[in-house]
């Protein structure tokens, strides 16, 4: 950046964006109109024009008409869509967003408030905290707005009563405190008369806190996330001339010429050659969060829209399954199994709602069923995308930790990503060595089958801890061996003593554990062994990867007893300890179990004795792995 730019830009004052929200008719637009008036922000003639509009409608003067600009809004006395209006205090410039309070227009409230630095919640002193006061408060929190002030307005209508004010303040703090919403200031005001809006009111000498303008001046403008790791979603790749320019906005961190950058999820890396600019002045050496940039690379690798640029040592998570806390605005409820277009920065994917873990109606702060999520509700859902995405948990990076869901043309929801309990798949997907040539065996599969007496294969048991995987596996191994099968059990605890001794129980380590088991099972089955693997293997993707490693001969067997039954059995006492919080990431309790969708066999151990289950398995093996007469 050259000095002339610095100087010219510095003259402009800072600007803070603040949303004015709250229940319908509580007096938001009135506060806004009056605030503009009090701070001298209305253009000449505006007050006279509003007086004329009100006279024509035969009604008293209405400050709300300053921002309620639509005929329908004025005629019905209600705000329909958010207005963005500039105003200035002695300290700095503002954009106030006067949001609608009617439940029907929540989507307009969200559209207006989503990128604000702060918010003012307006509450009618007489009515107190109502549905949308709570819902808006909760939504502000989800949108990441932490600087909140409350204006308890219409104090003129309750005789400036300090006790009533204290009651409303307590109500608000109680209703929203548990969500983590803590207001900076709670201010008694009269929007209509301008008390405590820009100047302290003589009618409420019992109050000695800030005015509304004073509270706003106390907030800070959010700065771009320069301190977080580099994230730049690729917006486009341009070839207008001889240059091939990768374009996008840096959402966090910073970038310098000469940096090696990684593109995820393609996992290609390259060195940044130049940062381009126009008009072409002095070369740009670096850029940071907030900048829309374009750069060229030293090597021509394939890059497309939707990838995320990071530094190699600090890359985003790669996954196609994650949990999200979603706020829903669709006319149709959000349903399990339904497909949506998922947008994550510039990436887009088809994604399915796999499960709904809980639903919160923020207005009443209660939970509803988990079948579907109605409009205006918030829910924790598990999403499964058809492709792998590069993303971050919202708690780590708000800019790359959020998604939007669309149904057809329409945007129907937004959500914050939470990866707790789900693995980063980057490790298991990345092949590190590339210069490998496989040897060709000169013993054929058929020859091995004739020697051993049956084809090799894998019975991949999956199910909760305590469902009976190991019991059945050991019994089945014994009985199959007796019948002439070369059967061998791969069991979790056994492998963890050796091959997998360096792995723990974090989601990533579990994924790696299963990847290794899958590869070992594949080798053994190729030798001709009938492998029985007994692992919880809770993630569908991990099992799919094992299936791919093994190829034909892979049989997924769901050992199913249901969580309640497993917990009742609790043979190892693990469930009790997990419930007590002694074991983290325990499947079924504090980590997810994804039941199979299309497995080859289900064994219901809740409703039949062990022998019956084993017999069913033997019949299954005899059908799929018939014995041939061995030849030596």
């Amino acid at each position, binding site marked *: 950046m050259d000095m002339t730019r610095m100087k010219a830009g510095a003259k*402009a004052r800072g600007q803070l964006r603040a949303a004015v929200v709250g229940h319908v008719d509580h007096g938001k637009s009135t506060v806004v109109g009056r605030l503009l008036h009090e701070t001298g922000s209305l253009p000449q003639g505006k007050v006279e024009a509003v007086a004329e509009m009100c006279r024509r409608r035969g009604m008293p003067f209405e400050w709300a008409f300053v921002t309620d600009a*639509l005929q329908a809004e004025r005629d019905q006395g209600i705000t329909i869509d958010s207005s963005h*209006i500039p105003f200035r205090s002695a300290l700095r410039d503002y954009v106030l967003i006067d949001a609608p309070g009617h439940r029907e227009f929540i989507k307009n409230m969200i559209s207006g408030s989503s990128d604000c630095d702060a918010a003012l919640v307006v509450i009618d002193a007489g009515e107190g905290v109502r549905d949308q006061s709570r819902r808006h408060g909760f939504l502000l929190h989800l949108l990441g707005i932490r600087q909140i002030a409350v204006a308890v307005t219409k104090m003129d209508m309750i005789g400036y009563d300090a006790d009533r004010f204290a009651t409303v303040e307590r109500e608000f703090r109680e209703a929203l405190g548990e969500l983590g919403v803590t207001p900076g200031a709670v201010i008694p005001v009269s929007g209509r008369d301008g008390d405590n809006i820009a100047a302290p009111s003589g009618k409420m000498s019992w109050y000695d806190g800030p005015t509304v303008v004073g509270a706003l001046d106390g907030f800070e403008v959010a700065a771009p996330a320069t301190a977080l790791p580099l994230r730049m979603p690729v917006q486009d790749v341009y070839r207008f001339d001889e240059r091939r320019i990768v374009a996008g906005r840096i959402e966090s961190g910073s970038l310098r010429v000469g940096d090696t950058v990684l593109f995820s999820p393609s996992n290609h890396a390259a060195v940044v050659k130049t940062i381009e600019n126009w008009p072409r002045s002095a070369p740009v050496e670096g850029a940071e969060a907030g900048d829309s940039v374009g750069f060229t690379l030293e090597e021509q690798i394939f890059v497309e829209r939707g990838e995320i640029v990071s530094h190699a040592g600090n890359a985003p998570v790669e996954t196609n399954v994650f949990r999200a806390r979603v706020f829903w605005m669709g006319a149709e409820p959000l349903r399990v199994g339904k497909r949506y277009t998922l947008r994550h920065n510039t990436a887009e994917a088809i994604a399915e709602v796999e499960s709904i873990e809980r639903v919160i109606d923020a207005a009443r702060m209660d939970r509803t069923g988990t079948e579907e999520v109605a409009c205006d509700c918030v829910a924790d859902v598990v999403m499964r995308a058809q492709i792998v995405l590069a993303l971050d948990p919202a708690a780590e990076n708000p800019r790359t930790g959020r998604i939007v869901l669309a149904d057809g043309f329409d945007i129907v929801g937004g959500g914050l990503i939470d990866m707790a309990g789900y693995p980063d798949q980057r490790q298991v997907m990345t092949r590190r060595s590339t210069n490998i040539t496989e040897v060709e065996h000169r013993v054929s599969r058929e020859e091995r089958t004739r020697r051993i007496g049956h084809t090799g294969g894998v019975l991949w048991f999956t199910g909760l801890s305590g469902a009976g995987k190991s019991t059945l596996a050991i019994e089945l191994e014994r009985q199959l061996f007796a019948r002439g099968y070369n059967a061998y059990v791969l069991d979790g605890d056994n492998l963890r003593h050796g091959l997998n001794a360096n792995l723990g129980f974090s989601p990533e380590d579990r994924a790696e554990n299963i990847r290794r088991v899958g590869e070992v099972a594949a080798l053994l089955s190729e030798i001709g062994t009938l492998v029985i693997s007994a692992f919880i293997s809770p993630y569908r993707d991990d099992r799919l990867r094992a299936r791919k490693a093994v190829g034909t001969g892979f049989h997924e067997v769901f050992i199913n007893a249901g969580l309640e039954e497993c917990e009742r059995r609790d043979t190892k006492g693990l469930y009790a300890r997990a419930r007590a919080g002694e074991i983290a990431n325990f499947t079924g309790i504090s980590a997810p179990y994804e039941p199979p969708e299309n497995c080859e066999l289900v064994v219901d151990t809740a409703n039949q004795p062990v022998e019956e289950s084993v017999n069913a398995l033997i019949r299954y093996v005899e059908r799929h792995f018939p014995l041939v007469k061995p030849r030596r």
Partner: protein
Amino acid sequence: MQTRLDALESRSIYILREAFNQIDRLCMLWSLGKDSNVMVWLARKAFFGHVPFPLVHVDTGKKFPEMYAFRDRYAEEWGVELVTGDCPPVEEMDADLPPAARSAARKTAGLNALIAAHGFTGIIAGIRRDEEGTRAKERVFSPRGAGNVWDVRNQPPEFWDQFRARVPEGAHVRVHPILHWSEIDIWRYIQRENIPIVDLYFARDGKRYRSLGDQDITSPIDSTASTLDEIIAELEVTTVSERSGRAMDHEREDAFERLRAAGYM
């Protein structure tokens, strides 16, 4: 650290790049005023010196001669693809509108004809939220339905810079890359970037134009601001609204909303 102008510019560039990536048949309205010149400049920044879509001038035939001269000079100098379209006579416009609004409606009709002729599905327009009450409620990507109407009572949600760029057959989307700028931001940016503008904005004989429309329905304001510094200083203290010289804004309470609902910018 980003300055305020850097932040405004970066967001505008992001919007322009989204529009270019997401919309097939895209054009940019070039009214020749200060805002649309800033917008063209931002496009050249976004696309590294190129403007990868046509600039459309809907010609009412009643612009100031200085504006036509400006158009022809910079269309050539910047190497842009210029598309012009004419407007039907005022007699064909809604007779129920007050006179200035009726005259302004010609521009909507001219634009609609161009949209139909070229099959545009995205139109980039340089309106700002601080200009006027209904513009204060606009989306960055604002859909226009069949007949190019704006359904202001049912606008789609828009947040986290995720835009609704795709529209059904027969509809189009208006893209507003400088919606979040204010008048004074525009002038500071013109100064910082040295962007050419028509001389009519600078005071001569105690008058200057603050907003440029058709000759017969736009009047100059009293001003002695004849340099960029002086214009910025004037705007820092003025309490006169930017569009005070636009006759159509003051004829009837609902006139401007009706114009915009029917497709005006």
